[in-house]
């Protein structure tokens, strides 16, 4: 099976660091590390320790499996707006924004980051599992003169944690002055990179796009900094869940609209007047009528985690929704979940029950993020 999996530019490094590799979105990816030597002295390794290291210092994630592309040409921003409900035309050079590819039915085809590089160039980062479909969809929708250039020859690293800025500024002076969601083309230790001050952990940090052939060099330079330890997909998932961030294919998909997904904030004021994006009619109706269900945070009263797919019931035992992501939060030191419940039962503090192994376990609807965001101001 492993020979049918794609690899990232860090495949050899992961294995050398003691990674446990798993298949994810068609790639062999590290889920966690059994660290040795100097790195083991920094971080014990394993999902818990990697997660806590990220919240305390700085963790390095390989996210090279994600899809990167440039969209270039006069009117690129306006052209992309025909596919997303976000304000792309109003995105200033050097700024990045989170947005959604919506379907005609008002569902979510994918969530993505869009950065304005200036000169009618946009940089896109989409989910690994969706990238082929996304890029085909975008390429097919662009007018003459706007070109989508997929970048399979680039790696993507995420350096996340409260010490990420101090670490990266050592290798690239000035990056600690970037604001949240700023984007810049800068050399990092002499390696040309496109960096954004963003991430998927709730912590301060950066995502660093770099040519595939220099990705390992850059990763090794970052791992040589004493605050940094590698972290795998396991910690990435528990970090983003504590931060209340959606995982595509689980918390959002083609059957969820942005209103019930509590992502209405991604629809800009201007786009809500124009209503000229895919699914606008359905999304407008959901906003007007109110959604039938809502994505909420859920905190179990006890210690048992409730996993994805767990039924959520009311005190009378009637089904009111499902868990879409659930597990254990290492920083919270407690189980936590995200899911959809009937809209009239979505208020914070509402008591609900999670059907775990046939037993209704008491829980409460809870505000997200579960762990406060630590973004730079």
């Amino acid at each position, binding site marked *: 099976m492993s020979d049918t999996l794609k690899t990232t530019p860090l495949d050899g490094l992961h294995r050398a660091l003691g990674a446990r590799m798993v298949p994810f979105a068609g790639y062999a990816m590290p889920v966690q590390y059994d660290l040795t030597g100097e790195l083991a002295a920094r971080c014990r390794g394993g999902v818990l320790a990697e997660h806590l290291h990220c919240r305390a210092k700085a963790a390095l994630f390989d996210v090279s499996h994600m899809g990167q592309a440039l969209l270039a040409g006069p009117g690129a921003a306006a052209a992309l707006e025909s596919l997303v409900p976000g304000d792309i035309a109003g995105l200033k050079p050097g700024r990045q924004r989170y947005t959604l590819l919506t379907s005609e039915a008002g569902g979510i085809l994918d969530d993505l980051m869009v950065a304005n590089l200036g000169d009618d160039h946009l940089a896109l980062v989409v989910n690994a599992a969706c990238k082929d479909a996304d890029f085909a969809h975008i390429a097919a929708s662009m007018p003459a003169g706007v070109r989508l250039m997929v970048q399979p020859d680039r790696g993507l690293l995420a350096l996340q944690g409260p010490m990420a800025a101090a670490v990266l500024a050592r290798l690239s002076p000035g990056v600690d002055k970037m604001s949240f969601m700023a984007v810049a083309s800068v050399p990092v230790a002499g390696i040309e990179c496109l960096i954004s001050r963003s991430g998927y952990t709730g912590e301060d940090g950066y995502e660093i796009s770099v040519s595939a052939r220099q990705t390992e060099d850059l990763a090794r330079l970052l791992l040589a900094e004493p605050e940094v330890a590698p972290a795998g997909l*396991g910690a990435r998932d528990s970090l983003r869940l504590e931060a209340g961030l959606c995982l595509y294919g689980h918390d959002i998909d083609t059957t969820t609209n942005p209103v019930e997904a509590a992502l209405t904030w991604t629809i800009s004021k201007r786009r809500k007047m124009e209503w000229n994006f895919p699914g606008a009619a359905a999304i407008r109706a959901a906003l007007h009528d109110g959604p039938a269900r809502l994505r909420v945070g859920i905190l179990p009263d006890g210690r048992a985690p409730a996993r994805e797919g767990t039924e959520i019931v009311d005190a009378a035992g009637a089904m009111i929704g499902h868990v879409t992501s659930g597990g254990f939060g290492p920083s919270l030191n407690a189980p936590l979940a995200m899911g959809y419940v009937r809209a009239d039962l979505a208020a914070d503090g509402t008591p609900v029950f999670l059907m775990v192994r046939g037993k209704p376990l008491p829980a409460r609807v809870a505000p997200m993020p579960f762990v406060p965001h630590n973004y730079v101001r």
Partner: protein
Amino acid sequence: MSEIRYTKDHEWVRLEGDVATVGISNHAQEALGDVVFVELPEPGRAVEEGEACAVVESVKAASDIYAPVAGKVIEVNHTLVDEPGTVNADPTEAGWFFKLSGVEFESFAALMDEDEYAEFLESEAE
């Protein structure tokens, strides 16, 4: 120390008289990763060989623990409820899950001994 035996589901068993102590192997705890939750059977419950009777959960996933031999649950390790990480730290001693009484020696003896389990792990790794 009494002899230890293993199942193909990676539980271990120690037998003293007709009382079996059950836990998960070092290999199992390594494969699971950090244990964050353990659900133990009710004392007094009679279990059949192969019956799911406890749950161990890591950050990522939940796994069933099966009774390696038939018997009656007489004691559970409450330490694991408050300190589930004990399963990782000391899987074959302090990290035991439960004790079964009325266990037949033959069913214990039919399980893999230390060498056979090591061979089994090697065959699984291939």
